[in-house]
């Protein structure tokens, strides 16, 4: 059992961007914080990214930043650890874990994040079946690894199609919402790919281009003007494999009102964010309300973004909904303030 002095304790479930940032601020305010992270390392999904939109800076900058932020004497880190039960106590909560350690906490912060949509669920795209259909996560891994981009046959792709809205805005997969950041991810990766494959034709097949953030629209403009990325307004209906392992894609060019078929060497599926399995598990354990889209419900979508449906349990980051790294940092900081407000009352 962890109980430190007379300081108030906070249990942060999830050691990614949100969890680390909020914990750092709370530690700075004098609280003692335990971060419980189910993976072997801290950092969350940003560990997998190579470069970030909109400016293509190195994702490792964020990693470095988080490493510094988590190095506080008041922060204790438990990786490879999962919370298995949460009970209300007089002072707050008591949480057990799957390791020989329990946590007494005056407040709990859920920062359990998102999972990437499993693209094989969009069966008509043939992910995990057709060799040259990959996801944006797969591509980012390839970028990070470095080296040339090839099809599975070892060919240098001459034509690549990025497919927007995979797993999002889709009654058939059960995710009606827009996942917000996939469009700009697609534009970013298209630009990165154009550097690696200067002779390739690169297409983005979209429904609406969600260029909502700072410099996003400018990135899109630059993609068209400087990098020759072609944008076609039509959602991918079906991908199938030709005998030479190229992929036949079918969509409609909705702006000209005609069906469009194209053979491409590589298809990149821009997969959306879903409420993670960790978010689901933690939300159940804490008996919290969920939104219809499976993310955790805040007490008020305008005014109570960091408050869950239960007093004393707070939310930060993409367990609330799809968000970018800067938004996650903003959100984590406001979560810290909400927790401080709450603990100062008692």
């Amino acid at each position, binding site marked *: 059992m962890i109980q430190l002095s007379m300081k108030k304790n906070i249990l942060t479930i999830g050691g990614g961007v949100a969890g680390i940032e909020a914990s750092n601020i709370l530690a700075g305010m004098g609280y003692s914080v335990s971060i419980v992270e189910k993976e072997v390392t801290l950092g969350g999904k940003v560990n997998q990214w190579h470069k970030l939109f909109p400016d293509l800076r190195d994702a490792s900058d964020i990693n470095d930043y988080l490493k510094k932020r988590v190095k506080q004497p008041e922060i204790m880190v438990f990786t490879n650890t999962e919370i298995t039960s949460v009970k209300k106590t007089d002072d707050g909560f008591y949480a057990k874990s799957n390791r020989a350690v329990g946590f007494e906490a005056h407040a709990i912060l859920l920062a359990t994040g998102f999972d990437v949509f499993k693209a094989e669920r969009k069966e008509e795209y043939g992910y995990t*079946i057709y060799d040259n259909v990959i996801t944006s996560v797969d591509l980012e891994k390839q970028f990070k690894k470095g080296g040339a981009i090839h099809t599975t046959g070892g060919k240098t792709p001459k034509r690549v199609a990025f497919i927007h809205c995979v797993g999002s805005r889709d009654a058939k997969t059960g995710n009606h919402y827009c996942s917000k950041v996939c469009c700009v991810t697609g534009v970013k990766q298209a630009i990165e790919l154009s550097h690696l494959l200067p002779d390739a034709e690169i297409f983005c097949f979209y429904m609406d281009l969600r260029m909502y953030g700072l410099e996003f629209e400018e990135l899109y403009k630059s993609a068209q003007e400087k990098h020759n990325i072609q944008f076609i307004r039509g959602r991918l209906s079906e991908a199938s*494999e030709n005998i030479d392992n190229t992929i036949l894609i079918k969509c409609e060019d909705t702006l000209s009102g005609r069906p469009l078929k194209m053979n491409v060497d590589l298809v990149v599926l821009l997969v959306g964010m879903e409420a993670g399995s960790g978010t689901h598990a933690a939300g159940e354990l804490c008996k919290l309300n969920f939104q219809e889209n499976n993310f955790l419900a805040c007490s008020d979508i305008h005014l109570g973004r960091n408050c869950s449906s239960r007093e004393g349990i707070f939310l930060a980051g993409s367990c609330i909904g799809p968000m970018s790294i800067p938004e996650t940092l903003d959100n984590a900081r406001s979560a810290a303030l909400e927790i401080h407000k709450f603990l100062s009352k008692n």
Partner: protein
Amino acid sequence: MKVQGKRKIWHDYQKEIADDHYYYVRSCIRQNFFPASEYYFLKILKDVLGKDVFDDPKHTTCTGIGYHADIIPFETIQTVVARHFALMTEAGYKNFAVSCVTSFGIYSEITETWKEFPEELEKTRIALKKSTGREFKVPANITHTSDLIYKFKGDIAEKQVHELINKKTGKPLQIIEHVGCHYAKIFPSKGVGGAEFPNVLTGMIEEWGGEVVDYPERRHCCGFGFRQYLVQGNRGYSLANSKKKFESMKPYHPDAIICNCPGCTMFLDKWQYVLSETEGKTYGAYGSGIPVLTYEELAGLVLGYNPWDLGLQMHQVDSEPLLDKMGIEYDPEKKYLGKKDQYIGQPCNIVASL
């Protein structure tokens, strides 16, 4: 291509298929063009698998072809369907086995409509009672007859006499499977394997030794199009759709095409003939066509039944190349003879056949 990905999808789409005691409803097109398929379906289920299947002469067409050609009101087809459910109920059955894929789509669509819109169910009860005096229960289980052959493919494999293997090369036959649109596109959960990678025919083919070929236009409609075929002036649509599929499958050199919808079987057979006559194009090896079979014919062949008993002589594209590959013996002299081996005419092109 990674087949494990497909297997995972098949694992996720497990459809409930009743085990025994079926009320059987026939298919207009299958009876006209593949009559022996229905005969052998019943024979295989009853004699080979020991199942109870009720063949009721009192049922009629479901009117599905007319309905999809927009001459039959929705209320009318609901009541015709209800009448069949009444006959099933009166005969003491709860499991409904449908021979036609369009019908299967109709029975599925109507039973789902009744769940969403119970007032339609009520209206239908009243209409059926008023017009025929009959009352009905909705079946506990509605399956397509290909689902049943799929379900019992293992039992059939145990009694298999021929494998889907090319006897000359020892390699599995390369088989194209074509699943009817109305089998799974309307309700993917009602198709074994779902709509994108259906397993109902693949399962049979692989169980009996063959290999299934995937090709880009696999999911494309054969082009029946109902009114697009029924009216002469529209038939180009129907032909064009099938041609698209043939062009797409040709590089894979398939040995046969298997369909679960009788319409698709008929069209993929007949349009090959039309293309060879009008454009001189053929899609099989050595300038011949690709044999197109129903799944009942395929099951019948692997069980060792006589190809001419199975009705292969009614096809336009000759099946002999497939029979030869499988090492199935047949008497060419008897192909077009009648029940008592009497001469009953023959197709006029027999000398120069496909």
